[in-house]
């Protein structure tokens, strides 16, 4: 009996591995909305689009406005991939040329759909909105600065919550900020200020390239919030984290922000403090080793005692 079970094991494993690609595919599956969206994406997914000009009676080829281009690959990876374009946009957009008045249509807000919904309670949408409304972005630009400015309606997907590759999360989240702070055109949609180069304004930070690839902008620029995963209150630059020890110390703020999701264990079995960080990083001051500390104290102590005894004996026998 037992023997037979052992034979069963590889068989099971084999079937599992065999099914794996299928299972993965299922997750990335292109939703039903795709065929409907294709009607829009045949123009909005391409650099060139075609339409029939009834006046002159011929096919016209034209360039798509690059700001109206939608990357369909990104779209079908996004949170709202199951949506049809016309769930958010007026169904009158099915007609071309689009009615000029359509551009006046009000857009949905995140809270219009997610507000008060139990399913999304763990995201704390209301709390996020509250923080956002108190942020510099919202207070200085009121209505013009919406959630969509950071959460691109056609590509936004949650990362920090479900991506285990911290490096990717950092790049994804920083790209959100850099989409304005390194792009004057989007920035000046909201202000006439000239966009100060973030590389220059952060010159005080040593190993800048390393820091920008290992921490997110929001680590330093938002007020830490214990309740929500991604703090949203971007503060005035005067309030940004500047003290190195806020990260480079045993109670590193990174444990409350970037590594919040995983920071259950403070000290790993090998004795490293803040060991969750270690998978990807080594942060001076935050990753001390407990056993190394103990050993070094003991060795130092013994050396000291040895020296003192030797010195006393020398003195006595002088």
């Amino acid at each position, binding site marked *: 009996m037992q023997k037979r079970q052992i034979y069963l094991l590889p068989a099971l494993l084999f079937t599992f591995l065999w099914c794996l690609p299928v299972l993965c595919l299922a997750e990335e599956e292109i939703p039903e909305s795709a065929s409907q969206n294709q009607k829009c994406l045949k123009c909005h997914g391409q650099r060139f689009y075609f339409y029939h000009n009834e006046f002159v009676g011929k096919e016209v080829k034209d360039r798509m406005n690059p700001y109206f281009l939608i990357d369909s690959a990104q779209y079908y990876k996004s949170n709202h991939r199951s949506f049809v374009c016309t769930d958010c946009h007026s169904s009158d957009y099915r007609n071309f040329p689009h009615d000029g008045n359509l551009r006046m249509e009000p857009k949905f807000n995140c809270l219009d759909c997610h507000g008060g919904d139990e399913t999304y309670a763990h995201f704390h949408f209301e709390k996020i909105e509250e923080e956002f409304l108190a942020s510099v972005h919202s207070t200085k630009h009121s209505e013009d600065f919406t959630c969509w400015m950071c959460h691109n309606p056609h590509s936004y997907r949650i990362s920090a919550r479900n991506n285990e590759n911290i490096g990717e999360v950092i790049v994804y989240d920083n790209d959100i900020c850099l989409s304005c702070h390194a792009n004057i055109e989007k920035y000046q949609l909201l202000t006439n200020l000239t966009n100060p180069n973030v590389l220059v304004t952060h010159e*005080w930070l*040593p*190993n800048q*390239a*390393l820091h920008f690839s290992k921490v997110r902008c929001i680590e330093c620029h938002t007020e830490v919030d214990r309740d929500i995963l991604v703090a949203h209150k971007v503060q005035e630059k005067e309030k940004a984290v500047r*003290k*190195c*020890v*806020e990260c*480079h*110390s*045993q*109670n590193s703020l990174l444990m409350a922000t970037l590594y919040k999701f995983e920071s259950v264990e403070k000290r790993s079995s090998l004795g490293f403090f803040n060991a969750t960080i*270690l*998978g*990807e*990083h*080594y942060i*001076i*001051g935050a*990753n*001390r*080793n407990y056993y*190394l500390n103990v050993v*070094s104290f003991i*060795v*130092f102590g013994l*050396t*000291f005692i040895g*020296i003192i005894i*030797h*010195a006393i*004996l*020398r003195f006595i*026998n002088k």
Partner: protein
Amino acid sequence: MEEKLYLYPVWLRIWHWINGLFFLILLFTGLSLQYSSVEYPLIRFDIAVSFHNISGIILTIGFIMFLIGNKFTKNGKFYRINWSIILIELIKQFRYYTWGIFKHEKSPFPINTERKFNPLQKISYVGAMYILMPILIISGFGLIFPELLPGRVFQISGIHLTGLIHIIAGFALSVFMLIHIYFCTIGKTPTSNFKSMINGWH
């Protein structure tokens, strides 16, 4: 007593005091970085980083000076170890330090122009200068230029491994320095060795 020996040439003395001074700076800034904390900052973190980096670079220049000096002057010969007899010599010297010295015995390896160091000094100086210092310096430069380090080695990040090696080597050298300074008080008088390292004459 015996005639005076000129054992510490000028370049060696300059190197040694630069080395000692900057090693101490590195030790204090290094400790402050390793045990950094928000509540009890020993030295402000960014200042500690700058001082540590600059001192490390000066220490390295000094170390290269030491290597060149030992290569091209007679001083290098004091660092050559005769492996076939070193063990017996070490035991003799060890017995002297733990026993003979209290009984006012004569040092088993008195200093002369052919032998500046006793075997224990020799082995610890060679260990410190030719093994620990290179490890410390190379790992230190790895941390200044982290982009040159391997991404990961056996599951842990290259920077982390380098950091550990650096801290262990620095710690070992600090212990060496403590013992070293103490043993330098074992001379004709407790201060005579320090005077020698200043004026060159033993």
